[in-house]
């Protein structure tokens, strides 16, 4: 926490010194670039933290600016009315962005360029409307003739207000990184699939990020109206949107300060060079190109690396863990049943009227030759693939039409075949995210203490001397060897105390000792919680050691169920394996 306060105090002090050292005029100049910078911080937040690139964020900047101008004209400088109205406009912009993102990301749209292009089209529409409705916006010539905020002189009193906004936004963005919300965002970028299996809805997470990005842009825009005394369609146009992205990229989109630095540095350099150097635009474009090619983290990345080299980064102190609140996943009840489930992909029938009743407690191992539909069955249960016919029920509840992220609240957790962990996050952060899963509610995302939650399953795993996790908690999960990754994913899967655990080839790539450990951990969890566990496995030793019951799948159907010895005796099973397949 100390460094956040230091950085922001230094930022505030440095910015407030500008008028004192450089005069009101310089402060006025810097003020504009700071406002652009705040809007670019919004872009950087969505892009660097949320992982999706908005190409039309001037939409919110412009709406904020036009809105504030209209309010200022109507209310004639009553400070609190003005401020309340500006806050309201920012909230409305945030709500608009939230709605847009929710609609777009809920569909088939990933974080790819589709979203960027929609925001681009939106800003083109907005600019066209602003340009061609003079009665409303003043048209091309702009909206003017309103007093500045609370009568503050753009060359005097307004500057501290801008600095206050800059510091407030920077502080908020820095704080969010240290809060559960920031961790969830980082998880989103690192491994969306795992986040979803941990019960977080990616489209909602992205919508919140975009709402924040838009709200920040609108706040900057509303002060821009006071700073300029005129709002023209450029404030809501494509070119400004594009520049916001350039500033965020060059300054560094991963850091709250990066976009601010980019906007002030490029804006100020452009304004200084524009009139004397014919090449200035080429220069800015070349710098942008070089950053994209060679320095994707922007200038702030260089600065961070420099600081790290100087050894100035501080180690974070570890606060003592807190007991985590009860998990919603632990409360779920009812055995899982698949009834005549059919699923085809790419014209190939993978599940063919598959019926399978899982026990409410105990361990079921699912075996079958490659291509029998074992993993697809798990994909059908966790709604990763759409079921085309049949029913999947959990007790009395039908799981049809539910999304992957809703499964955890029904008590279902899953470990993937290829372990999916948050590779860019440390082990500790992986476990923190898993501790939030199924337990976090509403405003917990903005409180620091949930990051200290420790769940009973993870506590047990960390206390187990054989489990190779406790030693390297501050290492990046992406650098773990395959076997250790399996244990990390197991810890994350068990952390929310699910009633139904699905383990897809949990021992792949493991040594015999590790395999034995995995067997013991799965058994322990089952006995401690009375949960149901489904294991897909090829390794018959493991099946033998683990299974209370075995189901054999073949060509998308259940071929046999029973104990391992029983299914081994089954002539149908023997026929399938006769070809030599295990």
């Amino acid at each position, binding site marked *: 926490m100390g460094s956040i306060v230091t950085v922001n105090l230094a930022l505030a002090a440095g910015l407030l010194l500008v008028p004192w050292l450089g005069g009101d005029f310089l402060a006025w*100049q810097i003020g504009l670039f700071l406002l652009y910078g705040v809007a670019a911080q919004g872009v950087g937040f969505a892009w660097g933290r949320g992982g999706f690139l908005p190409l039309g964020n001037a939409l919110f900047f412009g709406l904020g600016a036009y809105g504030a101008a209209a309010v200022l004209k109507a209310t004639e400088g009553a400070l609190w009315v003005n401020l309340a109205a500006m806050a309201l406009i920012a909230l409305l912009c945030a709500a608009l962005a939230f709605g847009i993102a929710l609609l777009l990301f809920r569909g088939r749209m990933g974080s790819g360029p589709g979203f960027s292009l929609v925001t681009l089209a939106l800003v083109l529409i907005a600019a066209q409307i602003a340009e061609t409705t003079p009665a409303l916006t003043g048209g*091309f*010539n702009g909206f003017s003739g309103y007093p500045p905020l609370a009568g503050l002189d753009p060359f005097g009193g307004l500057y501290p207000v801008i600095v206050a906004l800059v510091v407030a936004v920077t502080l908020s963005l820095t704080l969010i990184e240290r809060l559960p919300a920031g961790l969830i965002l980082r998880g989103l970028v690192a491994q969306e699939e795992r986040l979803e299996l941990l019960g977080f809805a990616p489209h909602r997470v992205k919508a919140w990020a975009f709402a924040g990005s838009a709200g920040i842009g609108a706040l900057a825009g509303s002060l821009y109206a006071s700073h300029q*005394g005129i709002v023209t369609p450029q404030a809501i146009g494509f070119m400004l949107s594009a520049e916001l992205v350039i500033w965020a990229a060059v300054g560094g989109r991963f850091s709250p300060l990066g976009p601010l630095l980019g906007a002030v540095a490029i804006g100020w350099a452009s304004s200084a060079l524009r009139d004397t150097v014919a090449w200035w635009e080429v220069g800015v474009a070349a710098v942008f190109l070089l950053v994209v090619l060679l320095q994707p983290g922007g200038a702030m990345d260089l600065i961070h690396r420099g600081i790290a080299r100087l050894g100035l980064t501080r180690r974070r102190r570890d606060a003592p863990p807190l007991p985590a609140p009860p998990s919603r996943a632990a409360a779920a009840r009812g055995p899982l049943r698949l009834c005549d489930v059919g699923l085809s992909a790419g014209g190939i029938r993978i599940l063919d009227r598959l019926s399978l009743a899982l026990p409410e407690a105990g361990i079921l191992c699912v075996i079958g030759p490659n291509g029998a539909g074992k993993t697809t069955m798990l994909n059908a249960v966790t709604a990763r693939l759409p079921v085309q016919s049949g029913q999947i029920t959990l007790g009395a509840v039908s799981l049809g039409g539910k999304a992957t992220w809703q499964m955890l609240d029904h008590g279902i957790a899953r470990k993937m075949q290829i372990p999916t962990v948050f590779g860019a996050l440390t082990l500790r952060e992986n476990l923190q995210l898993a501790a939030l899963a199924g337990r976090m509610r509403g405003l917990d995302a903005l409180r620091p203490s949930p990051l200290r939650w420790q769940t009973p399953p993870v506590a047990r795993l960390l206390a187990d001397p054989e489990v190779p996790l406790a030693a390297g908690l501050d290492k990046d999960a992406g650098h773990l060897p395959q076997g250790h990754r399996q244990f990390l994913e197991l810890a994350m899967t068990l952390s929310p105390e699910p009633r139904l655990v699905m383990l897809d080839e949990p021992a792949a790539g493991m040594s015999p000792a590790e395999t034995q450990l995995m067997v013991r951990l799965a058994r322990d969890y089952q006995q401690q919680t009375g949960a149901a566990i489904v294991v897909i496995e090829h390794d018959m030793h493991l099946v033998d050691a683990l299974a209370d019951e075995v189901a054999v799948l073949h060509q998308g159907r259940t071929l046999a169920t029973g104990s391992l010895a029983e299914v081994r005796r089954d002539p149908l099973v023997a026929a399938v394996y006769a070809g030599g397949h295990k």
Partner: protein
Amino acid sequence: MKRLLISTAIAGLMGGTALAEVRIGVLVPDSGPAGLFGPSARQAAALAAEDINAAGGINGEPVELIFADVGVPPAQAVQAVQRLWRSDGVQGFVGMHDSAVRAAITGQLRGQLPYVYTAVYEGGECATGTYVTGETPAQQLAPVIPWLAENEGVSRWYLIGNDYNWPRDTNAAAQEIIAASGGTVVGEEYVPLGASDFDASLGRIRSSGADAVLVTLVGGDSVGFNIAYSAFGLDQQALRLGTLIEENTLAGIGSANANRLFASMGYFAGIDSDAARDYAARLGATFGSDAAQPNGMGESIYDGLMLLAALSNAAGSLDAAAVAAVADGTAFSSPRGEAVLDGNHVAQTIFLADGSSGAFEVVTRFDSVPSGVTCP
């Protein structure tokens, strides 16, 4: 051009020591859509400064020009204006740019410095301390439409422009003038800036039976429209009148597509007068192969500087209040001819030129045309 850039850059850097000069800020578009007027505007400014200094400068002091690029969004343009004003000690401004930038600049200056706006525009600028030499719709149309009715026999007008303030205000003025001249408006439409497809509009023009089209499209849109217009043979049906088609735009349109294309402005490179010929010759002599094609938009900076110098010399200083006190009736001359300040606009000569040959040939001229703008 490069030499000029360098010399102004050096002048800018050395500015701190050369106190015995009057500094004027010259606002021209070097970038953006109007960037093509940048070179001719800078050259016009250089010639004007030479002429002002040769005639004794402003109040006896030599004039020094400081340029700023205002072909950028208003927020960035006013940064430059403020810098020239607050850091470089500029005492007055002359600018040729779009109306959004003008509105932003008048909002910043608030009448504290004299400011001359020189671009063709929609009219109506009445801010304190702001003087306008640019042609207004009333000036470009009031004498021209009746003349075309009489000499070309046109009466059915179709109005087409880009969808923003200037074309809409121009057409509002045109409506009245056409009605007063006995003509009718058979169609009026606006296309978004950056449009490239005019087929639907051309179909409407054809079926409207128009015999004249008033074109208030700008830049590339105007070029595209006029090319398609001729491709469809509409030049046979209706003549065109443009109020912002200068030499560059005409070059883009091409001689093959310019049949019966008229333009109405305060300046054309082909004006048949000693002042205009002298101006063209000096451009060549001063800038050699770098000389930009002279045109009404670029040349307007010359007029602006001449007006500012005349105002200052009349007032004895560039103090805004002193200038305002003597402004009305101030006269100056330029390659366009003589002009007199009437209110804060000028009454000036308007030329009607025919571009059919690919170069504008002045058909007729109208002297002392009033701006039609009266400020309260």
